[in-house]
């Protein structure tokens, strides 16, 4: 069956469907990752977005079991690829990508010129799109919704049995952040994005503010909680959205990048050294004004934008990239070690 990808500027591109034939609206995004589509699709940061993969051949190794996903379900609203492979080949594959998408009611289109879409997003910014199968639907701006609230956990949950306790503020956390912490033998108390755990009397040795979808300013409640944490000088580590929240909570500011960073090949250098790391990224906003008391920690080698901040004297730090990788290179997993050492 054919479906159409319709941009808010009127551009219409036809494609062959290989997912659920459900019309849907959202914001278009892209990733230049060449592998790791199961991880990307289940990344809550993509909530509300229709993801275009610039690597043209997708589906090749099928869909592995739940253990390697980044959350319990597909989070993207829709998927666009150049060529879909319906004959997956991998010992871990439990179903084809198409079967998975259909079972989770996610539409997907094969549109051969995905490079055109990538360049369009790059030049014009993320815009509203919809995938239609015959019926007409309206554009929806997911950024007007509180996406963090939609993907965050609803309940407080304890994971692991380590001595040290870490509160994980779940703004749409990727499972691999949890796995990285569990690996380091800590007890994780996973709380909803708006849970004032201090008020609730939860004691901890440190706080990790997770990644998540959308505009950081929508996570106003999280920002307020982080302000309290900072005041109490509890060690804090922010990742991606968590990085922006830390900046906003401590008097810094964020701005929209001319060209967002979307892939597994983003180079960052550690400020004040010659050391560089390859990182996974997926963001269109960056920290502009460094908050008082903080200094730049990482910067992007390509465009010089800020990729992380660290407090000059107190145990607060955050990075814009994804040290938990999945998908992507594991160069910066040492950041978890550093966080644990601060507890």
């Amino acid at each position, binding site marked *: 069956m054919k479906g159409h990808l319709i941009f808010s500027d009127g551009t219409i591109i036809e494609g062959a469907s290989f997912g659920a034939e459900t019309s849907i609206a959202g914001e278009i995004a892209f990733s*230049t*990752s*060449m*592998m*790791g589509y*199961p*991880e990307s699709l289940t990344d809550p940061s993509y909530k509300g977005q229709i993801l275009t993969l*610039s*690597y*043209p*051949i997708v589906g*090749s*190794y099928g869909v*592995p079991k739940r253990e*390697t996903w980044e959350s319990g379900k597909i989070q993207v609203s829709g998927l666009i690829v*150049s*060529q879909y*492979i319906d*004959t*997956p*080949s*991998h*010992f*871990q594959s439990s179903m084809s990508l198409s079967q998975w998408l259909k079972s989770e009611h996610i539409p997907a289109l094969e549109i*051969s*010129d*995905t*490079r*055109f879409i*990538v*360049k369009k997003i*790059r030049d014009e910014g993320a815009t509203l799109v919809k995938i239609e199968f015959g019926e007409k639907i309206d554009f929806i701006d997911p950024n007007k919704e509180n996406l963090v609230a939609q993907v965050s956990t609803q309940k407080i949950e304890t994971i692991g049995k380590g001595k040290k306790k870490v509160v994980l503020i779940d703004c749409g956390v990727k499972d691999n952040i949890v796995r990285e912490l569990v690996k380091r033998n800590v007890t994780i108390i996973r709380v909803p994005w708006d849970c004032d755990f201090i008020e609730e009397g939860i004691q901890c040795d440190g706080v990790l503010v997770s990644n998540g979808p959308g505009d950081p300013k929508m996570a106003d409640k999280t920002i307020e909680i982080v302000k309290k944490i900072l005041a109490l000088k509890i060690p804090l580590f922010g990742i991606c959205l968590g990085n922006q929240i830390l900046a906003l909570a401590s008097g810094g500011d964020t701005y929209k990048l001319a*060209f967002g*960073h*979307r*892939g*597994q*090949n*983003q*180079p960052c*250098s550690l400020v004040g050294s*010659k*050391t*560089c790391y*390859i990182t996974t990224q997926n963001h269109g906003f960056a920290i502009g004004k460094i908050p008082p008391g903080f200094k730049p920690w990482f910067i992007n*080698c*390509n*465009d010089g934008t800020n990729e992380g901040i660290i407090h000059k004297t107190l145990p607060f730090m955050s990075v814009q990239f994804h040290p938990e*990788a*999945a*998908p*992507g*290179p*594991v160069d910066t997993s040492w950041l978890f070690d550093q966080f644990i050492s601060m507890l």
Partner: protein
Amino acid sequence: MKTKFKKILILGSGALKIGQAGEFDYSGSQAIKVFKEEGIKTVLINPNIATIQTSKELADTVYFLPVTLEFVTQVIKKERPDGLVLSFGGQTALNCGMELFKKKILQEYNVEVLGTPVSAIILTEDRKKFAHHLQSIHVSTPASFAVRTVEEGQKRAQEIGYPVMIRAGFSLGGQKSGVAFTEKEYKEIASDALAFSPQILVEKYLHHFKEIEYEVVRDQYDNCVTVCNMENMDPLGIHTGESIVVAPSQTLTNYEYHELRRLSIQIVRSLGIVGECNVQFALNPHPKKNSFEYYVIEVNARLSRSSALASKATGYPLAYVGAKLILGYALNEIQNQVTKTTQSYFEPALDYIVVKIPRWDMDKFKGTTEKIGSAMKSVGEVMAIGRNFEEAIQKGIRMLDIGVSGVTDTSKTPAELNIKTHIKQANSKRIFFLIKALQQGVSVHSLYKLCGIDPWFLDRLKVLVDEENMLIKNKTLDKQSIGSLKKIGFSDKRIGEIVGKSELEIRVLRKSFGVIPSIFQIDTLAGEVPAKTNYLYMTYGGSHNDVVPLGKKGILVLGSGPYRIGSSVEFDWTCVNSSLALKKYNKQSIIVNCNPETVSTDYDMSDRLYFEELSFERVADIYEFEGSESVILSVGGQTPNNIAQKVHAYNIPILGTSAEDIDRAEDRNKFSQLLDSLDIKQPQWNSFEDMKSALSFAQTVGYPVLIRPSYVLSGAAMNLCYNEQDLKHFIQKATDINKKHPVMISKFISNAREVEFDGIAQKGEVKVHVIANHIEHAGVHSGDATIVYPAERVRYHSGARMIEIASQLAKALHITGPFNIQFMVKDNIVYVIEMNLRSSRTFPFVSKVTGVNFAEVLVDSFFGKAKTYTIPYPKFVAVKAPQFSFSRMESADPVLRVEMSSTGEVACFGDTAEEAYLKSIISTGFSLREKTALITVGGEENKLRFAESVWRLKNLGFKLFATQNTHLFLKSKGVKTTRVAKVYEKKNPNVVDLIKSHKVSLVINLSEDYQNGSLYKKEGTDGYLIRRATIDNNIPLITDLNAARLFVKAIDKYELEDLQIKSWNEYL
């Protein structure tokens, strides 16, 4: 400036051979550019005169000398460099560097090796120590034992359990290695390998594991990136140089990809590598309990063939960056040469797939098997880029230039009864056998069981077979169906073949539907940021173009395609130099080529680079998109020349000589008439459509005769026939003989001198020419011949006649541009053998020995601006010698004949031909261990003509061995030799035993002409057994009388120390 180094010595890789090809011209050239940029003086040693790195514009000082311990030491003594670079000259440079290090030469002259420390190189080259090192950092390696004897290894093999893998230490391209399933096989392979290397490895054989490679770069601040990963389509057991390879990997999950990436980086860090390194893994496709089972198979601590591929596949200039790194730069201090807006610390993101396919030329080696395995046999490769695997592999198969119109075209595949055998045993045509099996309905699963190629790839091939079957069934071509066929790589020609239309008809039809390819950039970042790159490919997986046409200023320059026997780096030199020369005329060059080993496909050699097919369809696509002025077909060898008529018929202007005139030179009938009309002599010849008239012609002119098919199919060979039986045999072999495809038979003139004439004409007037003579008599292919400049052996009268003939032909054919004539002289009569209206293999040689850049002059001639050159007689002699790779071609007969079999060439200078010749053959690997030689001479005339040389050998103190007849003959001339039994005498030790036990350091085996020339019924004769044993035991072999005589004269005149260490500048 970043570095303390003032003068750097760079070791090149020497002649192209199997396992070490053009990729090192690319990497060395990039390195020299970087050093120059940094203001460092550069000295290059490389005897490969056809390379671009040995150009005036690159290194400050060039030595055309062997890359061996002795010569390099002398150069170091003379030049006193403070730095030495080993990583850009392949295994040759690395081996030489290790010797220099071990002999403490570097210490003595205070020379520092840049980049990766020599100790790390030595570690990676010693398999046992290296395996130990990897274990110490908790990296898995397959169970492996280094042994020095066959017996010791046998015990180990039993321990590991068959099948086992056997490899020779210190070798390139997996030479002398193989998989043994039985003890008997083990013994054969192991004793072979031990003949070449003091140490072999017996390893666990990982049956049908995936083979995955990573290209890693590291700077001195410990920053690492993996530029590219690659997945071999063929499973482990097939050398990566013999495999079809894709980039990036297709069947790896995120976890597998990044675990292997992490391990690669860990290994590279542990070795302290600065620069480039390649890590190869085996990965179990079906591990127990969902685990992750991998082994490290190999690590190359230098630029390699894979790095050249990775560089071209991603657009990341590995060699350029590698050179900057060894000077001390950090990765993020080096600008990204492709985007110009980012830097070099990043990992390229691809939005396309790359497929590399090896090019084999096994049919050129009579007697060799088509099997492929863990040793390298391919002579070149192509790289195809597409938006899906189907598109890329179809392009790649066509790029091989083997006469097929796509993957599904099995017309050139032997009609074997048992397809499955040819799928199970990997061979050079396996992909076509897979297609055949799929066409017959064999399932992907059962094919996987047979060959171990991941079902993912087999399923892609099945798509192609299924789609073609659909077309065969309904034959309808509308916008939709043509569009989807083009998307998966079907050519116009193939579609036409199926529906019964011509290529051109399909082209017109699809264009009427608006089905045309898109032009995409290779931008290293998958479109994430705008890039200013000129590196392009075409695809039907697009709906927009990334660039706008250059218009009339653009000129297409067609490259040579894959390297193969007969077409190699020399054409790339001409292509690159012509492309650069266009600037002078305010034109923009658009290079089209598909060979990742070339310099012409570097990002800075043209205004635009299309990494594309050299087919008519694609050239016409590019021409139409770009709106170019014209196209140059005459600088890339025969491949681009082959489409001249089609290009012309399609009204694309060709620069230089017109297509009609090209045809008049290439069509033998027309050319022969032209020669007759000008009163120019040629050997008698005719073309024949039946056996009877052919035999009667041969009878009339007298044997020997030379036979060749007029319609030259790939691998269709020329052959010499000495009698009726021979002729019948070869006519029968040319199954295609009929009215449409007659065979040509010409009188062969024995003992004639062959002469190369290279020239450039403008509007029919010769502007520059060079004459050089062959050492070997006519009958040895010019590509295999030893060539001497100046033509000392051509008398004044003959030379004058050649110039006269060339002028007449240039005028008659209205030549503008390059041409080459092969002359033959017998009894002072000059004959024309062949003429080509394109630049020849000898263009870089003649340009470098005369100082006149022929590529520039030919471009001048296109614009009517060529000057007339008179080249003074030189004060030196230069000799170009062929490089053979017979040792890689199991059971091939290592003898010179009318068909070319050399894979590369070198050229050196000297005061005399003897000096230059000695330097040249040493450059090709010739070394005399001791003064011992075996001499077997067939035929009375040969014996008489060689007698004097044997005397000289005797006087030089050689201990000589000879077989019966030669022994008796020499005895009658007063030369004492030790008689050795021939094999058929069934006595021990026989001549082969003598060779195997290395009791001789040189074998001179001169067969009678008919034995040499005639090809069939060869195996099993004594001559063959002697030659083969010589090659297999790595002993120098001379099989040509004239070459042997020159050799003896040379060693009579010169000791190694007498050979002068003079740079190119000092000679010219």
